[in-house]
């Protein structure tokens, strides 16, 4: 088998891996900004450690991992949790606008972890985001490397995508602190709901129109839904005040 040139393999693997890397970073940054960074980063590192063990053990046999059931399971968990934050974000933004959470809401547990020890919710979200997307990147690298008979170039492309987008995520985490947390929770809830919907359905073997680009469509649909629900809640509050 003739090796493909290094540049085409690096570029192709980079582009394919970039999609997965963006999804991974979006989840980790979103959870970290909303829930706190310590446990999120711990979860992300745990995810990379899990990946390293899986990759070392399986090696080239990675491409035989049944990714469908994994996507379904992780997609389901992300979707049910994402919908909780989606709903809470809608209710909070409808109640307080973009003013932030202010005093703790006695009817809701605080979303930002302030206790000692590990916030296992943040850890789990970050861990499974890194494991699923990292596995997909690893499978892309193994598949492209095998097809091109050039594993080194494929690893370079995949690793470059991961490093670049992790750096972008690191740069973004500072400005994210300026965003009111109620709005941030709504944004991250929308993100998790979109990813969870996409992966869980894809895990069932259902094809999305436009493939990965369908995630963008889902983000738009859920963002519009949130705006409509917020407008409805605000209208109902105004009507109740007028009647009172």
């Amino acid at each position: 088998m003739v090796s493909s040139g290094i540049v085409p393999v690096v570029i192709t693997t980079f582009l394919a891996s970039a999609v997965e890397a963006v999804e991974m970073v979006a989840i980790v940054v979103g959870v970290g900004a909303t829930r706190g960074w310590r446990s999120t980063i711990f979860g992300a590192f745990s995810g990379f450690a899990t990946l390293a063990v899986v990759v070392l053990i399986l090696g080239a046999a990675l491409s035989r991992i049944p990714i469908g059931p994994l996507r379904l399971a992780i997609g389901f968990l992300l979707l049910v949790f994402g919908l909780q934050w989606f709903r809470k974000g809608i209710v909070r933004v409808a109640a307080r606008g973009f003013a932030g959470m202010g005093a703790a809401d006695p009817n809701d547990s605080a979303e930002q972890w302030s206790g000692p020890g590990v916030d296992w919710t943040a850890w789990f979200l970050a861990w499974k985001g890194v494991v699923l997307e990292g596995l997909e990147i690893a499978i892309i690298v193994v598949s492209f490397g095998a097809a091109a008979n050039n594993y080194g170039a494929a690893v370079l492309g995949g690793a470059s995508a991961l490093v670049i987008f992790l750096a972008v995520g690191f740069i973004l985490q500072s400005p994210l602190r300026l965003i009111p947390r109620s709005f941030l929770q709504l944004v991250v809830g929308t993100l998790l709901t979109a990813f969870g919907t996409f992966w869980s359905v894809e895990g069932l073997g259902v094809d999305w129109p436009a493939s990965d680009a369908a995630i963008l469509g889902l983000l738009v649909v859920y963002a519009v839904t949130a705006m409509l629900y917020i407008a409805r809640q605000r209208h109902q509050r105004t009507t109740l005040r007028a009647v009172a």
Partner: protein
Amino acid sequence: MNGRIWSWIIAIPRFLYNFIVGDDWTVAVAVLAGLIVTAILNANHIVAWWLMPIIAIVATGVSIERHYVQSPR
């Protein structure tokens, strides 16, 4: 030592329950039911990608109304 191990054994399913169900079980049930129906439709070669977004949107609306019933505006 046994008490500590036992508390870990209980903690994991409790964590998963809170993670999945949260404060409204109807959403988790709706998502599960939606995925089952999607799987059935797909198995019968019916285009089914559109169902889960609709389920998510409707479940959110129902959950918001339930929230306001429990905590009036």
